């Protein structure tokens, strides 16, 4: 896991091999397009970017003392998302209903993606892609919410192009500073 409360950690090794400039460009374009699809609320197109066994985990961080043995983020705790692709589609299906009153007028979304780092992963076609994502949402007259986190994606090269296999998002907010989170990040 990328974030832990303790400062007493092993030194991080230098990357084993570097992605080519062409591949970095391809991954960047993939992530930018993905962010735009979320801004435009084109969820069916967004889900096309995932493998069938895609999993999405957004744990709720806990503010603990550094000396605490338990980490800030831990699997098995309550999470904002801990979903399979089918379950994500179920969540998104609600937003398409005409009766989703609180989505009409729609929320204005911007998903900002930056700090992209690409490292080889275990599978020959797989890459560990780190990024920072920030979601800006504006609703009604004066409701504005920012939510940011560090992402760790597993991205696979397939005959159909790049696909997301797994996404973890480590948010900074322990208390979600808004009434809901009605998009993905």
């Amino acid at each position, binding site marked *: 896991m990328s974030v832990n409360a303790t400062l007493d950690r092993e030194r991080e090794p230098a990357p084993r091999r570097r992605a080519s400039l062409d591949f970095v460009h391809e991954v960047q374009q993939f992530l930018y397009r993905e962010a735009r699809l979320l801004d435009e609320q084109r969820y069916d197109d967004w889900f096309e970017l995932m493998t069938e066994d895609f999993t999405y985990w957004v744990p709720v961080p806990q503010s603990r003392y550094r000396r605490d043995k338990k980490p800030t983020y831990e699997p098995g705790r309550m999470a904002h998302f801990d979903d399979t692709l089918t379950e994500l589609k179920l969540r998104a299906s609600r937003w398409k209903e005409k009766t989703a009153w609180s989505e009409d007028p729609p929320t204005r979304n911007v998903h900002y993606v930056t700090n992209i780092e690409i490292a080889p992963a275990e599978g020959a076609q797989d890459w560990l892609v780190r990024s920072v994502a920030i979601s800006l949402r504006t609703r009604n007259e004066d409701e504005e919410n920012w939510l940011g986190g560090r992402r760790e994606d597993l991205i696979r090269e397939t005959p159909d192009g790049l696909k997301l296999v797994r996404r973890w998002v480590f948010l900074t907010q322990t208390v*979600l500073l808004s009434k809901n989170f009605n998009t993905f990040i």
Partner: protein
Amino acid sequence: MVDTLQPPVAAPATDFDFHRLVDVEAGWIDRRIFWDEGIYQLELERIFARCWAFVGHESQFAAPGDFVTTYIGQDAVIVAKDRRGEVNVFLNSCTHRGNRVCFAETGSTRQFTCNFHGWAFGLDGGLISAHEEHHYSRCATFDKSKLGLHRARTATYKGLIFATFDPEAPSLDEYLGDYRYYLDVLLDNDPGGTEFLDGNVKSRLRCNWKFAAENFVGDAYHAGWTHASAAAALFQRDVKVNPAHSYQANINGHGTEFGLDLFGNAMALAEPEVVEYLKENEARFAERLGKLRSRMVGAMSSSNVFPNLAYLTGLNTWRVWVPKGPHEIELNTWVLVNRDMPKRLKEAYRRGVSRTFSPTGMFESDDGENWEHCTHSNAGVVTRRQKLHYGLGLDSRMEHEEFPGAVYHVQLNDANQRAFYQRWADLMSASRWADVPKR
């Protein structure tokens, strides 16, 4: 030695006639109760500093040293288990300069040491030591036995831990009264008892705390409309309640609206194993709860324990509406399960509740939108003059041979909301617990 804890100062809002602001006989509510700063300050004194507040579940305190930080009203408190196995609740504010003592949400510790001057407090809140304590050797008022963090009274009910800062408050059993009959639906349907799943979800809503509380105490009416999109996505149909076999019941401002459909709420988890569990165990639930209550374990229902603890049967979300001013709350939620339930079922609840009743969930995100705008429309002075209608089911009171409390026919009803505001007005009007009537 001076008494370091001062008596409460009466806030100016005591001039209001609270039983006129909430006309529960005719069903009209004055909107100033959702907006006025003076009324809110008096709520902190007369409701939150006096009522029994939910502060945690025993399963969160497995070992000595385990603690969580939370709030009673806007008073920050630490809840900690000491070496004798007692769970203590005390203010999270140093007796020296008032700094917050503990900044972690949860964890395990031997003591709580203030960052400012190193005053260290034990798991029972007592002052253990101070940094370079010898400076105080000739200070007559430095009496460590009197400089501990101010403690609340604590009591438990079937795993739930409550606390109050009012020495005159009735016992927790008396405070909950016959509402315990309804609490047992979730707290006592299995011999192994209950536990909270690990972790919780917190979020901020810009609404008055009472809109959230009244929604859970008795607003079955909103479900079919507000949550139509979630129902359509999950079930491809509307949410409908059964008028023949559904009820509202309230005692001392606590209330529950419910059907007898066993798994109506649980269906929303979209975890078939949970519904199977409820069906397979109905007879076992009945052994402990009787036949009628066994039908409530996962039923279409919502409930609120006065003032700000709420839960849903079937979905098993437990939550506190923590006030953060007249127009804001922090919503703090946990998931309660039977301790002896198979692990895969606990996992189904954990993931299912996230998809439904969490800030990312299909139901909860609609609720917050409503409550925020019900609150903020009251910024308008003319808008505030328009009383709100709480008249549904004024003629629906009934007698029931088993259900305790004031019982009402059909869960689509404002009866529990009226009872909630009656209790609110009772407490807001009374300067002493002795003047608060039993309802």
